[in-house]
């Protein structure tokens, strides 16, 4: 009896970038072409692998759509289990595709300046993928750290004063947050005696009294870390600064990292504090909801208050984080579906925007920007000359089109996926779906929409409006600036990734239904924690190489 | 005799701990940087001895390893600081 | 032989260290220890330009060690007494110079070890221009006595041990 080879696919997203990274470490700068292609091959592998995983999870190859990989062949609560389900597979795909775009973008310039860009990039991918896959809390911490460690290096890549200032902040905040993660983890272990997420979830209903309180404190600590990562107000002030400072391909990856926090919250909260969790059910949901709302407000205000594109992108990411957190806190499966769709769309949009910024900056000389600003501020009237339209070179046309697409997606205006996502969320809020769980049993009919739902809709609409206003303001200043604009030289490798990302977004619109269907299945699955607990804990190991009968011990906690 | 041994082990522990405390006070009050270095080094040394005595008390060899490692590498940080005081940088 | 085992004594010592650490005489460990003992000096030879010393007068060395041990214990109790009972205001702690004739690094190192291990004296440095040893004495009564003791009791035996027959080792 041995493992079917497809099982190993679950591990590939972690191990492939690690191997690629290891191979990249000793290569010197003289080999930059080889480095790039090595890196590229790894990411292509990841894309293919992610597609295969999606196929496996959604194609019924694995029971309940989840593949479980027991690293080192130890059964679930003891060893480290990796779990690929629909949600993690789609996130892996998103990571790989975004990585592909970022890496491609970096070919021209960023991959060559400074050393070890590619190796760190691979490690970053490893960390992100690992965080998506792992089903063990401490392993999650480790992958968070892998991700962060690599991201520190990447944020600093192309070292200048601004970057180093930003990364000082970024690093300090994240180090402090990592300590909180450890505190939380320790408390969870102390109260439940286990680290496997499913096992923790299985033991939570049995907790009571002081243990429960301590467990909740632990969960709060961990949540603070994730929320810092996903930039919930007031924990996310580092984000715009960091985004604005980091080099574009890195910033694009950072967008995804921000989502990792939200992803983990989504996964953990639905698993641990589900309706089956007894006294702990629904813990902290309100905080997430209101925190998310506050984050939306903050992000919207930020977008309006800033003139720099990088910060704008940062605030856009904050808005999307806030939306996502509020959606999670709202606690409704079909809303979560739309939320994940929104997550994917907004990640693509903000990432494309961040890549685009660099190209835009090449046309936007500081002088012309200043001029546009003054003219706007003082409402300078035109000299009464016959206005003449100006021909737009193809480069500019591309840039402005791409910018418009990003703006539409970020603002959630039709016809790009931002709108569909937002519509999906509104629809979900307005059509409350009550999950039939063991706890409450029956479906109830159409219920009234809680005030929070209306507020959420209003906030999302308003944030979209504000986003579009500020993006438009920026766009007008940039693309319609007076004075002669010299169309910049763009390299094909820089243009392709943006087209690729936007193309993906458009693909999301066209395939919205299929994608929504997939995500609905994904969301449905993560709303059934019992399945996870059952599956993960019962995944059999292979009989040991030197199979010696081990003493059996009973570790299931007894009900008090 | 076993009582005597126990008592003397206890005495040794107290002494080692008291010595550590005194070192720590010196470490805290300084006044100069080299005083602190010296205190830190002695603190390491006392810690090593404490580990050794604990080893006797519990009758296990595990503490010995720790003591050995303290002796082997504890000095590195001391000479690093000393060199730093002397030259302003530790690796020239 | 010379090529594969350039420093037999060092190798033996390292092997001994290994066996001591593992507290065993298993053949496997002996083999491993021997391997390490041979490999370690070879691998580090570039970083040790002086090579390793050759002991030439083991009897002298033993005698020196014996004398030094006594001295260490004596000084130790002296220092303890001073710390516990003396009036610190009258304590005469001073630096003194001791002219040295020995040039051999290992000899000097051994000297420094002896001096530093003797409580009450701390080796400060060898002044580069005069080749005088600067020594700090905790409770100085008679500087000349110290100079004399160090030169005759310590330095002479060490010269015998390390320096007698020309240069040693092979500077890498």
């Amino acid at each position, binding site marked *: 009896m041995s493992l079917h080879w497809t099982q190993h696919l679950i591990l590939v997203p972690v191990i492939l970038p690690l191997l690629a990274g290891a191979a990249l470490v000793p290569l010197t700068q003289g080999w930059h072409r080889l480095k790039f292609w090595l890196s590229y091959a790894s990411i292509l592998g990841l894309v293919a692998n992610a597609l295969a995983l999606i196929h496996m999870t959604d194609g019924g190859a694995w029971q309940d759509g989840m593949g479980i990989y027991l690293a080192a062949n130890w059964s679930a609560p003891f060893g480290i289990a990796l779990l690929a389900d629909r949600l993690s597979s789609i996130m892996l795909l998103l990571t790989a595709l975004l990585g592909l775009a970022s890496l491609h973008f970096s070919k021209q310039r960023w991959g060559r300046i400074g050393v070890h860009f590619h190796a760190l990039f691979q490690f970053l991918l490893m960390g992100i993928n690992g965080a998506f896959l792992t089903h063990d809390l*401490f392993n999650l911490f*480790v992958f968070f*750290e892998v991700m962060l*460690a690599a991201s*520190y290096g990447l944020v*600093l890549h192309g*070292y*200048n*004063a601004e970057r*180093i*200032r930003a*990364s*000082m*902040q970024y*690093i*300090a905040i994240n*180090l*402090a947050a*990592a*300590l909180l993660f*450890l*505190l939380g*983890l*320790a*408390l969870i*272990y*102390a109260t439940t005696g286990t*680290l496997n997420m499913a096992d923790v979830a299985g033991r939570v209903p049995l907790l009571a009294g002081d243990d429960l309180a301590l467990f909740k404190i632990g969960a709060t600590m961990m949540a603070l870390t994730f929320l810092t990562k996903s930039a919930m107000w007031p924990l996310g002030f580092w984000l715009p600064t960091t985004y604005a400072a980091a080099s574009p391909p890195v910033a694009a990856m950072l967008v995804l990292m921000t989502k990792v926090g939200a992803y983990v919250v989504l996964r953990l909260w639905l698993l641990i504090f589900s309706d089956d969790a007894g006294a702990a059910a629904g813990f902290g949901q309100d905080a997430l909801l209101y925190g998310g709302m506050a984050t939306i407000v903050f992000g919207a205000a930020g977008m309006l208050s800033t003139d720099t594109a990088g910060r704008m992108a940062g605030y856009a990411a904050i808005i999307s984080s806030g939306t996502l957190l509020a959606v999670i806190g709202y606690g409704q499966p079909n809303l979560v579906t739309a939320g994940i769709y929104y997550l994917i769309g907004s990640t693509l949009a903000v990432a494309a925007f961040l890549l685009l910024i660099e190209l835009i900056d090449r046309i936007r000389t500081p002088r012309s920007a200043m001029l546009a600003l003054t003219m706007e501020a003082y409402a300078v009237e035109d000299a009464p000359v016959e206005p003449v339209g100006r021909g737009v070179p193809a480069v500019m046309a591309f840039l402005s089109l791409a910018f418009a697409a990003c703006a539409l997606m970020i603002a959630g205006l039709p016809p790009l996926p931002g709108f569909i996502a937002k519509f999906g969320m509104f629809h979900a809020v307005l059509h409350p779906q009550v999950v039939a769980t063991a706890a409450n049993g029956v479906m109830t009919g159409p219920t009234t929409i809680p005030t929070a739902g209306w507020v959420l809709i209003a906030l999302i609409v308003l944030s979209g409006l504000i986003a579009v206003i500020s993006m438009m303001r920026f766009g007008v200043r940039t693309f319609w600036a007076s004075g002669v604009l010299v169309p910049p030289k763009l390299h094909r490798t820089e243009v392709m990734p943006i087209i690729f990302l936007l193309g993906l977004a458009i693909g999301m619109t066209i395939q919205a239904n299929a994608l929504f269907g997939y995500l609905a299945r994904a969301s449905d699955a993560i709303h059934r924690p019992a399945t996870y607990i059952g599956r993960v804990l019962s995944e059999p190991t292979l009989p040991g190489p030197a199979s010696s009968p081990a003493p059996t011990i009973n570790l299931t906690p007894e009900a008090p | 005799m076993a009582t005597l041994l126990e008592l003397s082990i206890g005495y040794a522990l107290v002494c080692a701990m008291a010595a550590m405390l005194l070192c720590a006070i010196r470490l805290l009050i300084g006044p100069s940087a080299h005083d602190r270095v010296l205190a830190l080094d002695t603190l390491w040394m006392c810690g090593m001895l404490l580990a050794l005595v604990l080893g006797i008390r*519990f009758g*296990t060899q*595990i503490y010995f390893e720790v003591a050995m490692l303290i002796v082997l590498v504890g000095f590195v940080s001391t000479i690093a600081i000393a060199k730093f005081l002397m030259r302003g940088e530790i690796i020239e | 032989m010379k090529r594969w085992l350039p420093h037999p004594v060092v190798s033996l010592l390292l092997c001994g260290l290994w066996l001591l650490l593992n507290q065993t005489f298993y053949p496997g460990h002996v083999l491993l220890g021997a391997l390490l003992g041979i490999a370690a000096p070879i691998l580090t030879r570039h970083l040790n330009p002086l090579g390793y010393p050759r002991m030439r007068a083991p009897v002298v060395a033993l005698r020196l060690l014996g004398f030094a041990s006594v001295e260490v214990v004596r000084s130790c109790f002296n220092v303890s007494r001073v710390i516990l009972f003396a009036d610190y205001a009258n304590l005469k702690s001073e630096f003194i110079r001791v002219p040295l004739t020995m040039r051999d690094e290992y000899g000097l190192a051994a000297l420094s070890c002896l001096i530093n291990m003797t409580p009450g004296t701390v080796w400060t440095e060898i002044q580069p221009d005069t080749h005088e040893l600067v020594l700090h004495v905790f409770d100085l009564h008679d500087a000349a006595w110290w100079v004399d003791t160090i030169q005759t009791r310590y330095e002479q035996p060490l010269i015998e041990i390390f320096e007698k027959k020309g240069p040693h080792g092979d500077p890498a």
Partner: protein
Amino acid sequence: MELVLSLAIGIVFASGIWLVLRPRSFQVLCGLMLMSYAVNLFIFAMGRLWIDAPPLTPAGTLPNPAILADPLPQALVLTAIVIGFATTALYLVVMIGSRGLTGTDHVDGQEPDL
């Protein structure tokens, strides 16, 4: 023992927090180091305190989990120590880089406007 260790963790952590909130990067570095000590001890304490019961199970004996320290927190702390070491190194280098480029050791890379 428990009380002492708890208080100790508390004090070290408090010192760490205080330092982390200071404006100078070196202070923050020290603070992070202290905090990570405290956190390591905290994780360690989650396995409860055991004296003379290192989790070693020599061959030939049947291990008895009831009289050996919980090994898992120790393994976690070990990993945490290593990661803490790495991040300290990183923060340090960023700190000196920042001092060099920005001319100040303020954590923001610029002196606050007074």
